[in-house]
């Protein structure tokens, strides 16, 4: 919430001209959700410090935003770090308070604009996503000397560890214009969390601020990506589409880049094809995809005229909405639309709408159920719905050795369990015994010696 800029340039008070703020005055600028105070703690020939102090209206911050999006009622909206940190609001304040300096102008002393001066910048406090290392990666290539103090979450509970807040001091001899443009872009990039009231013009402005250094920055990809993420989190898809042409190619590509930390085998599409083939290997006329998610398998199934009824079921109404969009449901011709149905449902509740199908698919679904609720799913599928064919796929835990040594690690945070090949075949055997099915187990994906394939699949045939 506090930014101080100090120079020892002689005369140091030149800073006042550059910033276009008189050192003797305490001034104020209005921000969207509060104000910023500008004053000079020190102002003499040898040393001059200008402070930019954010004074954010906590209550107003919330009130203005409520009632818009789905999480308008999340408690974290009310108690959070925003009023106390340097975030996009600080960038906003810089552009408001020091507009001419940021734009490289100085009415009274134009020669100062291009003059490099020794600067020391202090930020209290800067939230950093990525730890101290990130500070060095971002500011280091720009020539800053960095001093950072990381604050512990709570000194009464040292076991909770460090927070992501730093008191940061940056020193360098450069022009004020360059300094401010670095801060303007990198503060929100360090923060990397959602922020408020960024509009389109400001995005353009921000991009302009990067001219001359961003394209040479070794971390430009990361900067661009983080940068854009804030914007997309705030704007709806239509807005993003609208802006696409206005955004440099590099940034658009960066946004598209994969950011997933866990190794995600590129076998999803292949897996769906295998499941699809398996489902259609017999004269099946109707298929229900249980846990259809965004409708990828359903889309694939639609291309097979053999099927007269295809139903996708998912427990998340959000996923179904996306599925409707991806399948372009509204634009499907009548005869296609008649074949297809998407329903909101759950595998732990009996559902008569999934009864009467020739075949059912459960692709990467069962591992999302708590073990104690598996029995409900088994009864739903194998006792009540009882299709003649059921295709089940689930990760093979043994294969995890190909990317981790951590035996507890799972491939997705929502996985409640992952089974070894023995566990899976044991489960299949139990299902067959209890509900009168026969099962064939097949590997899906490239097999690794001793660990098997990434995915295991069982095809159950009703006896």
């Amino acid at each position, binding site marked *: 919430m506090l930014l101080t800029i100090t120079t020892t340039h002689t005369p140091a008070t030149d800073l006042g001209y550059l910033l276009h703020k008189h050192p003797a005055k305490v001034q104020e600028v209005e921000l969207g959700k509060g104000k910023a105070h500008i004053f000079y703690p020190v102002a003499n020939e040898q040393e001059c410090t200008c402070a930019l102090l954010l004074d954010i209206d906590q209550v107003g911050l919330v009130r203005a935003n409520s009632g818009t999006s789905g999480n308008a*009622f999340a*408690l974290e909206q009310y108690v959070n770090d925003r009023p106390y940190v340097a975030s996009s609001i600080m960038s906003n304040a810089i552009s408001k308070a020091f507009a001419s300096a940021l734009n490289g102008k100085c009415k009274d002393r134009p020669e100062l604009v291009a003059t490099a001066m020794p600067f020391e910048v202090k930020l209290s406090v800067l939230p950093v996503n990525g730890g101290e290392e990130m500070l060095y990666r971002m500011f280091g290539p720009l020539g800053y000397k960095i001093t950072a103090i990381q604050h512990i979450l709570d000194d009464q509970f040292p076991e909770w560890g460090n927070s992501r807040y730093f008191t940061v001091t940056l020193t360098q001899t450069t022009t004020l214009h360059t300094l401010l443009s670095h801060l303007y872009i990198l503060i929100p990039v360090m923060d990397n969390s959602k922020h408020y009231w960024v509009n389109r013009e400001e995005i353009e402005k921000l991009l302009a601020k990067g001219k001359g250094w961003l394209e040479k920055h070794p971390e430009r990809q990361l900067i661009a990506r983080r940068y854009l993420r804030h914007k997309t989190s705030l704007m709806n898809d239509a807005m993003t589409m609208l802006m696409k042409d206005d955004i440099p190619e590099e940034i658009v590509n960066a946004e598209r880049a994969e950011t997933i930390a866990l190794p995600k085998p590129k076998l999803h599409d292949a897996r769906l094809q295998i499941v699809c083939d398996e489902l259609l290997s017999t004269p099946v006329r109707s298929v229900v995809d249980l846990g259809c998610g965004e409708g990828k398998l359903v889309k694939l199934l639609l291309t097979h005229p053999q099927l007269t009824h295809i139903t996708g079921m998912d427990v998340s109404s959000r996923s179904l909405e996306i599925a409707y969009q991806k399948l372009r449901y509204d634009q499907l011709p009548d005869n296609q639309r008649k074949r297809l149905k998407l329903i909101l449902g759950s595998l732990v509740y009996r559902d008569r709408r999934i009864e009467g199908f020739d075949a059912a698919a459960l692709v990467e679904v069962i591992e999302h159920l708590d073990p104690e609720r598996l029995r409900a799913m088994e009864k739903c599928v194998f006792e009540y719905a009882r299709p003649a064919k059921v295709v089940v796929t689930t990760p093979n835990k043994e294969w995890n050795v190909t990317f981790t040594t951590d035996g507890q690690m799972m491939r997705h945070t929502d996985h409640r369990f992952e089974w070894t090949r023995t566990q899976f075949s044991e489960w299949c055997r139990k299902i067959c015994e209890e509900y009168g099915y026969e099962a064939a187990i097949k590997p899906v994906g490239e097999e690794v010696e001793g660990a098997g394939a990434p995915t295991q699949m069982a095809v159950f045939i009703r006896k």
Partner: protein
Amino acid sequence: MKIQVPELSLVVMIGATGSGKSTFARRWFGAAEVISSDSCREMVSNNENAMDASEDAFELLFYIVGKRLKRGLLTVVDATNVRSEDRKKLVALAREYHTLPVAIVMNMPDKVCLSRNEARADRNLPAHVVTGHIHTLRKGMGRLKDEGFRKIYELRGEDQVAAVTGITREPMWNVKKEEQGPFDIIGDIHGCYTELCQLLTKLGHTVDAAAHTVEVVAGRKLVFLGDLCDRGPDTPSVYKLVMHAVQHGRALCVPGNHDMKLLKYLRGRNVQLSHGLKDTVEQLAAEDTAFIEALKVFLDGLVSHYVLDNGRLVVAHAGLKEEMHGRGSGAVREFCLYGETTGETDEFGLPVRYNWAAAYTGKAMVIYGHTPVYAAQWFNNTMDIDTGCVFGGKLTAMRYPEKVLVDVPALATYVEPARPIRMPGTGINLQHEQDDVLDIEDLMGKQVIETALLNNITIREEYTAAALETMSRFSIHPKWLMYLPPTMSPSETSALPDYLEHPAGAFSYYRRNDVRQVICEEKHMGSRAIVIVCKDNRVVADRFGIEDNSIGTCYTRTGRAFFQDKTTEQAFLEMVRDALTTRHFWEEQETDWVCLDCELMPWNAKAQALLQHQYAATGTAAVHAMDAVVSVLRSTDNPAVTTLRNDFEERADMCRRFTAAYRQYCWEVKSLADYQLAPFHIIATEGRTWFDKDHVWHMETIGHYCGGERNPMIRTDWKLVNLDDEESVAEAVGWWEALTANGGEGMVVKSLSFIERGSKGLLQPAIKTRGREYLRIIYGAEYTAPVNLTRLKQRGLGTKRALALKEFALGVQAATHFVAKEPLRKVHQCVFGLLALESEPVDPRL
């Protein structure tokens, strides 16, 4: 002349155009009861004479008639109905809904019809059409009975029409709603007379076995579920006693399949003397003809089933599905006698019975027999109490409405059952088995849930959709979720300048609603937790139907497991269980399980992530930033910053207080001993809820089991406040101030009674009054700054309070259903609904 029709019947008017059907129907039946083809024709085509619209018109007519019959309403069809095929469709419709078809034939002379037809300005059909009608009608008259009409009235000529003086609606024989019991309902006796006498005696009635009479305890009535005869040693005596009791108004009796087969035999029909009938025939040989005649009359007069106690109880020999309750048709009678079979036979050559009770969702409790079972058990609000006495089992009676089973063992195994009766130990609890999976149909879409406290509660469709995802992905097994606590509203926003909340607000709420005594309970700052703990894992299996060797569960207010790890959970619950066992809780409260509403500490046990990512993070950011700001302002040698400096110094102090506030709810959890559980409500134990006890009872009773070594349960401080007594009120306020001065969360104010009503209905079950310091973690560190506080005081509590009441009613209802052993479906509907309501957008700071 009076025409008599059963009160639930489909009356089919039959007659040519101009025979006076419509006039007759209008004259003697209610306007809504008469569905005419003409008006249907008009509805679908704007013109009641548009003959080309007949097909659509009749489709509509059938639809309306079907809906009415389904709802149990007498309906009159006003159409010509002269053709047999038209009438057959109506008879089939009546049968589909198990109502009785009645024909009223308007058989008028030709000239009457013809002259009326000609007189009609709007529609006058060619004469040959009218005579054609009349001809068809007369030709078909003789077939009406075969077509299935139960009663046929033929009115010949205008004189007879004029002679009709009224329509008598005969009540259904099987509906005896006014019979409210209490009843002792007795299962299949099969000639086991001695056991019957013993059972009646055990039930408290006075039996004279030799005289075959029973004096029934005053006020009670016996209900016999049929199959009095066959297989056992003394069928005649059983009949004598039952007949005597029925004739003297002491008993009701429904027929069993064996009784009806005996009747056939007695009427001289050719029946096989199998399945024990031979014994009966031999035993009856010694009886005189007067008895045999009386027996025939008795058996002939038995009504298939009874609907009793205003529709709350149905008794039938083999059970009865809901759509047949109080209905009359051959199919109903068949069902009552034989139940439903799948059409297959089992390995013993007996028909495979389809368990109709599995799909039963009716409101009425159904008590039946017919299928011998090892032990009677509740299944979807139905119970089979035929415990196979004649096969060496026992003779069972159920007391209604007490729902208590009374039985006597068989004195001998009189016959071996053809199919083994399910043995103990291997016996599956049908209800638990079925409740493994509940039906989504009962939960989704717009829901209207009946509750005792608030009548019907409506849950919007979009909220049930959200609940489905939460319930499916995150909650524990529905079998555990017998209760969820309601959300709690804060007290009225305080008018005091420095406070957002103050006890005065809560007190004024209750005082305004005429409550004189309230209880104030210290509010612990932890996480709300529901703890269900059982004496041992057998109880979990038997009562909750969960076979995982656990002894209980601990879940959050949204139905999620409190502990991530099952081992920790069970170890913690064992400590709770042991503390209860040591202090004789199970004996004192006569139960083997308990459901407690509690606060579980420390806060960080559940909310560690929230604490670190939100509270501690915000705290450390605020304190360090503020310190930097204050230090810069202090070193600024410019008098113009004085105001700023003062302002930020104060705010820096608020930020430190924020950190201080959340800190005290946290402590490191190294072992189980670091958890504290503060129970404040005993929600339920076996067979009962405790909502009828006041809060002093709850606090005192719980107090007995709290504290001491190795006991995670701690006592909660409380105070009883008399709102009429200023001193008492002042003392409570002082207490609250002391509790909250250092950041204590505050207190909860409740009416003394658990459930309290005011003149405008149900009152808030509890109101929280949170401390001034505590509220920093809710409203932000600097909420107390006057500029913030004045704005924050513009808060509305209406939505929150309405929500709290609905959730309270649903929670109470869920627990009530659970202790009454209602099917899990009903419990879960309430819990699911409650969770769905939680997706309603409400300011989370309230």
